[in-house]
């Protein structure tokens, strides 16, 4: 981990557990970077869920990762991926709240999401790569059209290249949307939230 000045942050504090999985622990707490991903592929179509740890040599080698589960499936659409991801949420939350034992010492778990765009957008409840806010990380529009000039002026235009000034998404917004959609998705709601509130997080 590095701080805003580009220097490495020295982690020296022990991990003492946390009550909520969504709360990020301090950078000074000793931790393990665990990444989790889900992807569809193979000759006989199936989704593989994989866990791996970044604190090792060759972390992306297959031999250094753990196969967490396989789901036979024909499609990796949002509904299917969401159902599969839901199987792992309680275990991953337990991992984040309880931490891991490393050489007899308890360390916090920093969970990092990997995979293709389809899986990651399903995980955070993003509607998908549409022209309105296609990005998982910010709320910039795909391009300026005849009808969206004011919105693009407010939230940014992807076609501006490196000068795109889309507002970065936050964990707080994801949590607010998760609360709002506890009963049903935005499209099924009696009073659906407008774009200005959900920013394409619609489930």
């Amino acid at each position: 981990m590095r701080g805003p000045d580009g220097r490495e942050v020295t982690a020296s504090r022990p991990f003492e557990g946390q009550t909520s999985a969504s709360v990020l622990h301090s950078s000074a707490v000793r931790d393990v970077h665990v990444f989790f991903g889900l992807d569809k592929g193979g000759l006989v179509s199936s989704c593989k869920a994989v866990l791996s740890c970044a604190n090792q040599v060759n972390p992306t080698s297959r031999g250094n990762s753990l196969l967490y589960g396989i789901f036979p499936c024909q499609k990796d659409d949002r509904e299917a991926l969401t159902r599969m991801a839901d199987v792992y949420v309680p275990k991953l939350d337990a991992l984040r709240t309880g931490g891991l034992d490393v050489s007899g010492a308890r360390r916090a778990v920093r969970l990092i999401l990997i995979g293709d765009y389809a899986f990651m957008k399903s995980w955070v409840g993003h509607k998908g790569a549409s022209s309105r806010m296609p990005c998982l990380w910010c709320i910039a529009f795909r391009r300026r059209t005849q009808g969206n000039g004011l919105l693009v002026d407010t939230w940014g235009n992807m076609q501006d290249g490196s000068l795109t000034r889309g507002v970065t998404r936050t964990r707080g917004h994801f949590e607010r949307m998760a609360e709002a959609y506890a009963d049903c998705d935005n499209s099924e709601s009696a009073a659906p939230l407008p774009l200005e509130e959900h920013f394409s997080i619609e489930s």
Partner: protein
Amino acid sequence: MDPTHISPMPLHLTLGITGALLLLGIEAVYFHHGATRASAYATNLSLALRFAVGVTPKPYFGGAFEGRQCQLIARRMSAVVELLASYVPAADVAAYRVACDTWRQLLPVLTRAGDSSPEDAAAFRAGTARFVDGLRAAFPWFTVTPKMHTLCCHAPDFLDFFGSLGRYSEQGLEAWHGHFNQTAAGHPADSFLATCLSYVKRSAVSRAPGDAAHNRGAKRSPAKAGPGARDAKRPDDKRTRTGKILAGAPGASASCVLKQGEDRCKWAKDNLAAAASKIEAHWRRTKEAPPDTHEPCADEAWDGEGDYGELLEAETACMLSLLEE
């Protein structure tokens, strides 16, 4: 989930942006000369990638190139730029060359599993901005895709925060598909679900061998042969696989050559269709007329097969001789 803890998909960025760069060349030819020459360029490009770069598109990954092939393409992009130079104006070639050079510099940082220094991270941030903004300025029909946007606006932030991008790559995740294809037959069961269960159980109790298990120490790497070592300079050099085949040595099987040819044709056709769609949309949007049918002058005569026609003929001859055997 914190948005800063979502990996910016280094593998998918590598695959997508390499494919987009190759497609951009076809689009440029289509933009300047129309469909016929673009078709010839797409065919020649697929042959150049086969003979000058040494890669063929794969039937999986949507008919694109694998991650390692993308790195080879980036290192040998000069062959593609040289081919493009015979089709489009010099200004476009210059911009394309700059973009390819920048991409070649970015790729090692994007795929490196080790730590990148703060200087590397700063250079990566500047390079990605230069890459995307340069393409946007040089090619009027070019649109910034979500992957390009991720590369220039979010990957540098992730690199600053975690110190590496390749360490959080999805390569290991994709590798499980291939391993499952190979070994699922070793887990016979009444149903596919039971096969999956058996495979997961076996994976849990016996971790797959890591890279170290396959490393036997000595390596025969031509790049490390030392100064003065002879290296293949031309595609038809007998040290290269293509040169050996042309010299009559046994190469790939006939069915393999046929399959590669089919994959190449499909790649060229698909990319031509994508380029046509994009340029036609650009013309409609800007109400610009397509170029007149280009008639080659005497000093720029070209045939349908282009510069790699002879290599194609040679490969076909090899294939036929193998079939006769």
